[in-house]
């Protein structure tokens, strides 16, 4: 931050993107990690917090679109049809002042092991709007996570929004932490596309115990196309526990990480199947 000579807070996305196209310019969102960052190559800060077009939550019959500058507090207070695992993940973030500051775009761009929201967005198969001075594009969240999101973004490109299909999945999010405000030991989100008694598609994601949010593909594949059975949910939990590359965590050992992953993936699947409140249909 020490070599920064310019600070701008433009009102429009167009102006922000033009500023970000310059060498040494960097975006600032909620500032919860930027304020502590020390990168000597930055010479200009582009604060996104006055750009109204990326601060809104919009819904139609099919999709909910959440602007990149929407905060965690605004997500879980949203009076409309927010998918329940997105609300739960936003509410699980640290404490009130941190939730008031942390944004959707900042959480995805940062993507450290403890970022809660990306776990839910991955499980729900969101798409991500991106913009630079030269181009606007939309990619799937799976594509954003082919590497660390900051590496997938091109130079001068920012996240503008995330878009999630409404009512597609029965979904559930669980955060396990030592205290209510601590970083996650494990995050799990299970989302099930249900047709009658059949799981047409399952997307299970984890965070906390891994370097950044990721889908657990083998566990999802085990369930997809199968008739519902509780045994299958137990097997999916065991499969997930075996297929994850765990990060080392001074708070817990590997055995604990494995055991708790198996249990919580199964629990999240059960809760998605039985208790999801944002998708009451039985997927007829």
């Amino acid at each position, binding site marked *: *931050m*020490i*070599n*920064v*000579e*310019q*600070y701008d*807070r433009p009102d429009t996305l167009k102006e922000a993107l033009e500023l970000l196209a310059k060498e040494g310019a960097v975006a*600032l969102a909620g*500032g*919860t990690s*930027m*304020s*502590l960052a*020390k990168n000597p190559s930055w010479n200009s*800060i582009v*604060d996104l*917090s006055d750009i109204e077009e990326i601060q809104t939550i919009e819904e139609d019959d099919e999709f909910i679109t959440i602007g990149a500058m929407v905060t965690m507090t605004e997500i879980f207070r949203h009076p409309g049809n927010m998918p329940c695992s997105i609300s739960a993940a936003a509410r699980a973030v*640290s*404490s*009130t*002042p*941190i939730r*008031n*500051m942390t944004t959707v775009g900042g959480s995805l761009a940062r993507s450290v092991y403890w970022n809660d929201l990306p776990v839910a967005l991955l499980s729900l198969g969101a798409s991500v709007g991106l913009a630079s001075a030269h181009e606007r594009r939309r990619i799937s969240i799976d594509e954003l996570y082919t590497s660390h999101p900051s590496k997938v973004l091109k130079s001068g490109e920012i996240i503008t929004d995330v878009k999630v299909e409404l009512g597609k999945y029965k979904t559930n999010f669980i955060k396990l932490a030592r205290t*209510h*405000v601590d970083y996650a030991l494990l995050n799990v989100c299970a989302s099930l596309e249900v047709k009658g008694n059949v799981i047409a598609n399952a997307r299970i994601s984890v965070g906390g115990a891994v370097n950044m949010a990721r889908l657990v593909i083998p566990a999802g594949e085990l369930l997809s196309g199968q008739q519902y059975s509780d045994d299958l949910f137990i097997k999916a939990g065991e499969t997930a526990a075996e297929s994850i590359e765990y990060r080392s965590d001074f708070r817990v050992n590997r055995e604990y990480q494995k055991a708790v992953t198996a249990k919580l993936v199964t629990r999240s699947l059960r809760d998605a199947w039985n208790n999801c409140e944002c998708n009451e249909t039985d997927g007829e």
Partner: protein
Amino acid sequence: MIQISLNINGEDFDVDVSPDLTLLDLLRELGFHSVKKGCGEGDCGACGVIMDGIYCKSCLVLAMQANGRDVFTVESMGDVNDPHPLQQAFVDEGAVQCGYCIPSMLLAADVLLSENEDPTDDEIKEALDGNLCRCTGYVKQIAAVKKAAKMMREEENDAE
């Protein structure tokens, strides 16, 4: 140096700030010593302020981000001669021991009561979850916020 203008507790300030200066350090340099530097990295909550109506941690805000913003510290709430109901209730309930965490806790509670005039225990706990207190067990602070809410509802009824 970056030139900024901000309003603190109703008063305008024009200052030149270094790009890595935090709002916390700026406030303390300007004499608002109620804003405490506990950890300087977002953990303790002793630096809490209200910026444009939002309760946030001033150690995680760069001073330049406060350009054009309205900032409130506990100095804006009241003093010994004319305490805010929250301040009075904290005293009445014995919710203060060393006092280090109290300025920001009062601000967090103030935002809560401006949005919710009759909060439940759980709502109070959530609103104060960013404020670590090493002395008390939080129990009396929760009682104090409830008491202040009641005092403020009664004041409002009397005014009507």
